[in-house]
């Protein structure tokens, strides 16, 4: 169906070159001028488009192109005015140092943060799809109110609730249930907090995911459900056997976004589980100006570098970012086809 849609509107030209030339010779001068004008304007339009696209791509990629030389060059060479693009001596010291700083457990830190992001992603997709399905497909008197509530959860900035949430987690009693069975627990600095939030629909941007799913399920034909009902499927079976397989495009979109945002989330991880193994929050808390002196000192000791400047701090930071981004970029290379191809049916368009 997709191929049918993308068929060009113009009928394909099948005339041979010789025939074309013959036809061209029969045209009046006015017609020739018109044709030439069209060719010129078409060509210049294409040229402008090409330049624009190339320029924008450059702008997007420039910061990364720019940091390649500074990251790869020898730390002592940084700030050398003779070096702009090609470093005099290649070295990976910045990378080694940065990886030691943001990955205290070596590769395991990266694996752990990827696993964390994946786990939260799965929970988020599961819960938001269910919520979205009910919102779209089960009629309550208060369905409209439900939409308002979800939208409000999306609109109220999450930081403004941070304080109260923090205090609440500090004395967590699960709406009084915990108090009956014993006492309240302190959930700060425990990974379970983050999973709990995702499980109850309040992970990173989760209300947005709920909205996407509800938009998507709204557009699935009702007949599918009715057919399933007649064939004897209950509510749950209809959902898991019929609706979920049909929702793959929406699930893919949400999953990609959820993974990226969870992997890059510094906010919940930093405040609710500060000592957990999350690379994003590690990155955000390690490379702050207050740590500059200590970090540079460490580099000098670890790698026998005689002098380090502010430039070296930048190089460290950028190397850290590249290490952090590597898994994301790899994932993106594989996943972007999904993202681009399934756009129309992803539920993003309500």
């Amino acid at each position, binding site marked *: 169906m997709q191929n049918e*849609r993308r068929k*060009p*509107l113009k009928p394909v030209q099948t005339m041979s070159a010789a025939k074309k030339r013959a036809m061209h010779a029969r045209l009046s001068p006015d017609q020739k001028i018109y044709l030439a004008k069209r060719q010129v304007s078409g060509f210049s339009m*294409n040229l402008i*488009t090409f330049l*624009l696209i190339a320029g*924008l791509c450059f*702008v*997007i*990629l*420039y*910061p990364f192109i*720019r940091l390649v030389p500074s990251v790869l060059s020898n730390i002592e060479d940084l700030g050398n005015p003779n070096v702009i693009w090609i470093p005099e001596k290649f070295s990976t010291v910045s990378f080694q140092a940065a990886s030691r700083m943001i990955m205290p457990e070596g590769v395991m830190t990266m694996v752990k943060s990827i696993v964390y992001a994946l786990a939260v992603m799965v929970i988020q997709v599961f*819960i938001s799809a*269910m*919520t979205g399905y009910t*919102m779209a497909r*089960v*009629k*309550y008197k208060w369905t409209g109110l*439900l939409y308002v509530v*979800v939208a409000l*959860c999306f*609109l*109220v*900035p999450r*930081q*403004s*609730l*941070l*304080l*109260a949430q923090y*205090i*609440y987690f500090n004395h967590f009693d699960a*709406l009084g249930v915990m108090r009956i069975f014993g006492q309240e627990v302190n959930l700060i600095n425990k990974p379970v907090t983050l999973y709990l*939030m995702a*499980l*109850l*629909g*309040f992970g990173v941007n989760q209300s*947005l995911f709920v909205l996407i799913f509800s938009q998507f399920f709204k557009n699935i034909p009702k007949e599918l459900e009715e057919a399933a009902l007649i064939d004897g499927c209950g*509510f749950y079976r209809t959902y898991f056997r019929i609706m979920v397989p049909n929702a793959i495009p929406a699930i893919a979109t949400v999953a990609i976004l959820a993974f990226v945002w969870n992997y*890059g989330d510094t906010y919940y991880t930093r405040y609710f589980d500060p000592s957990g193994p999350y690379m994003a929050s590690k990155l*955000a808390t390690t490379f702050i100006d207050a740590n500059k002196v200590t970090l540079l000192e460490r580099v000098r000791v670890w790698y026998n570098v005689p002098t380090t400047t*502010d430039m070296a701090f*930048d190089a460290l930071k*950028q190397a850290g*970012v590249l290490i952090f*981004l590597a898994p*994301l970029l790899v994932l*993106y290379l594989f996943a*972007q*086809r999904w*993202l*681009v191809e399934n*756009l*129309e049916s992803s539920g*993003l*368009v*309500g």
Partner: protein
Amino acid sequence: MKRFRIGYQTQRRLLGFTFLIPFLLGFLMFFALPLVNTVIYSFNHITVDDVGAMKLEPVGVQNYIDLFTTEVSTRSQQILRVLVDENSNMLVNLPLITLLSLFLALLANRKFKGRALVRMIFFLPIILGLEVVTDMLTVTTGSDWVQAGGGLFSQSLVARLLIRYTSIPNQYLRQLIAFVEDIFSIISRSGVQTLVFLAALQSISPSMYEVARIEGATAYETFWKVTIPSILHILLFVVVYTIVDLFLTSQIAAEAYSFAFEKNKIGIGSALSVVYIFNVLIILGLVLLITRKAVANNAK
């Protein structure tokens, strides 16, 4: 004895409700309760004793008065100043981000060789726009902070020519150059918006364009009469998303946190949070009102 029966619809509602339970529980615990608590805290003076229990002491609106008169932010600015800065910053960036993402989507929607690659690059900001990444890319060369793409345009030939040989007043030109310099920070926030716009553009039925062609519409007319009306409802979503996204990365959150946990003034931090929520909702309301009107006018 009458048998207890449940109709199909009721059953469906009950079963569907089980799907909602997690979200509703979460809403109560992680949204409603904190929201109410924030408001309560903001009207109290709060002290934490040795055991860790909190003592509330009602002070009326004193926290709010203090917030705007005596308290200062971490960069020792007046709080009002910070709020005004955040808002004006947002109102400038909002149209820029919206238009840029629409532009990117329009370009990515054209047919050309290597479109897959271009789309891949255009969506990269979804990843590169992560707050932690953009934070890290700001370079601290010497003492001043320079944006990641900075210094490229203002030193370029075009900029120099513009300054020297055109009669555009210097202050506007400076603004313009500043915008161009800042383009990476704007692009880095437009990933999701581009995605959404592209999805909307692709869902426009090709037969609409076919009709326009047959009726003899120019590309310009087709754009304004077919493309724009078909994506207007998405525009609304994009605007809202952009506002929320911009506020998400604003400085006020850090301020509230520092009030509460560094300066030990939970009440004032909460007051700031409440002001902040109202601020966001008011801006959203205003923008929605304006956009709605534009949409309604277009529908006529």
